[in-house]
């Protein structure tokens, strides 16, 4: 069991948990946390790949940095939308957000 496989297993499990979280939660903030967990899983995989497969190519690390910015960005915009919605409708429960019903 090399560290690589350990890391990949952890990454996969984190991804699964994040996916479960995203699909099961009713609140916008919880869904965003689910996404954060999924991204975390992805980062673990990335670092593992960089460390064990291509340490010479720093693009891997750069990729991780990019994923970090994505996490930050995703949270910022998510909360912006959340605030807008909260101010407009008084709650961010996803069950009530059915305005786009076809």
């Amino acid at each position: 069991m090399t560290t690589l496989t350990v890391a990949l297993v952890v990454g996969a499990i984190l991804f699964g948990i994040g996916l479960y979280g995203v699909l099961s939660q009713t609140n916008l903030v919880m869904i965003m946390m689910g996404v954060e967990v999924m991204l975390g899983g992805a980062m673990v995989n990335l670092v593992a790949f960089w460390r064990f497969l291509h340490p010479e190519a720093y693009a891997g690390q750069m990729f991780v940095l990019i994923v970090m910015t994505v996490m930050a960005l995703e949270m910022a915009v998510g909360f912006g939308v959340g605030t807008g919605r909260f101010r407009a409708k008084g709650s961010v429960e996803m069950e009530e957000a059915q305005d786009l019903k076809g």
Partner: protein
Amino acid sequence: MITLTLIILGPLVAAALILPIRRGVPALALFGAGVSLASALALLSRVAVGARPSAELPGLPGLPLRLTAEPLTAVLAAAAAVVGFSVMVYAVGYMRSEAGLTRFFAGMSFFVAAMQALVLAGDWVLLLAAWELIGFSSYLLIGFWFERPGVGQSATRAFLYTRSADLGLYVAVFVLIAHTGTSEISRTLEVNGAAAVAAGLFLLLAAAGKSAQTPLHGWLLDAMAGPTPVSALLHSATLVAAGAILLIRAFPLLPPAVLVVVGVLGGLTTLVAGATALAQRDLKRLLAASTSSQYGLMLLAIGAGFPVAALFHLLAHAAMKSALFLGAGVFQHARGSTQLADLEGVGRARRLTFFGFVVSGLALAGVPPLSGFWSKDAILAASFSSSYAPLLAPLALAGTLLTGLYVARALRLLWHGEGESEPVSGTRWMGVGFTVLTVLAAVLGLALPPVADLLGIEPPGETLLVVALGLVVALIGLALGWAFPADRLLGPLSGLAGTGFRVGGGFDGLVVRPALAFARALDALDRGIHAGVLAVGSAALAVANASRATDEKGIDGLIVALGRSARRLGNRARTLQTGLVHKELLLAAVGGALVFALLIVGSIGL
């Protein structure tokens, strides 16, 4: 040049003045005719001296109107002027008791001017115009008593007869101008070959129409419905002469073939018209038929190759026939009608007029000292010496015989029998006119030789045989005419001749009724085509409706069905889009899984 124009302008101005002024109308008309006569005689004297005055008026572009005074035209102008003046004098007396004098005298003056223009015309365009004008004025004058029944119709018939014949003149003129490029008559006469033949025949057609030759002579008999001065002037000396004048002037153009046709036509007309005259019961209609017969003789002379003889006879006949008509006018006033039955014994009642009538009748028949004898001899000589003598000579003799017959018949009927006659007013004016013409009829024979040398043409040689033969035939005719009544003479022909030889229903039967029938047939055809087109139209409409129906039901139905199925599909898909965020996230996850699977398959597959 001035005298030339004065001949025409005189009566024209008179007619122009009569219409607005409307007072002193006879005086004005006489003044116009007088001026024309004086200037015509002056012109004749100058032409005799050798002058050839001519005038040129601006006409169509490149085709100026010309007036020329050749010996031939000068003589004719003088003759027309003399007859015109004397008839005008007679008319003053004759029309005294009538209404509408202005219309009458204006028409008469206008006619004289148009006739002079025709005679003096130097080019075809002016001649054609004048030709139409005299036709028009004859229509006006014949129709003078238009309120009487049948007068209007006969005026129209006369006009239509001549008009349809005039077309021949038009075509001839076109052919000539097309060939020579100029409308001057003297220059166009050099044309020869096929064009000459065609032009000649068409000219003959026009002349036949105007001079009332065989097929087209019906209108002259009906034209007698007009007043007697009109008949005297137009239908004896001038208008009817236009056809002969035309052929005489165009003689150099006519090739031998055409001459033969002219001769035969002339002879035929002489026989037919003579027989018709013999069978007439109306004095004026008798004289009219004799006119067309005499013109037949003239055409025969032209056909024989001697237009001079025709000219002589034309001049003599003008005087004789107008005198006879004026006499008939007097008798008409005396008995109030021109039927021979009514006029029986009028001659004995009015001895002086009867005497004049007898002199001109005998002159017409060709009794020696009078002018008729000389001109008829010229024609007989011409027919005998022509190249077709065996064909033309008997016709000429027969013509002379018939003339003698109907003259004698007329005299007999006028002399025997009783009838009361009313007093005739205006006899002085009528008498003057009548005597002038009668004297001319008698004396003109002497004037013929100077005219011949004026024209510079040799009259046909008269052998003693021919002269004697002519005289004998004339006397036999007179005797028979006096002795036996007409139906005994004509025998079987009398019925036919009475109606003027309306062969096959005459003009109406031959021309009008078939034309109408043809028109009706055309109308029926047109109506048929119209119905056909309508049928096609409605068929097209039916096809259009059918296609619209199929289009509506078929294609539209299909599209609507397509639309509805798309809508149903859309509805079913709508349930997918719940708007619930978590549902859509689930969809996203499923989508991701699909992509992932594809990638795996792709990578494995590679």
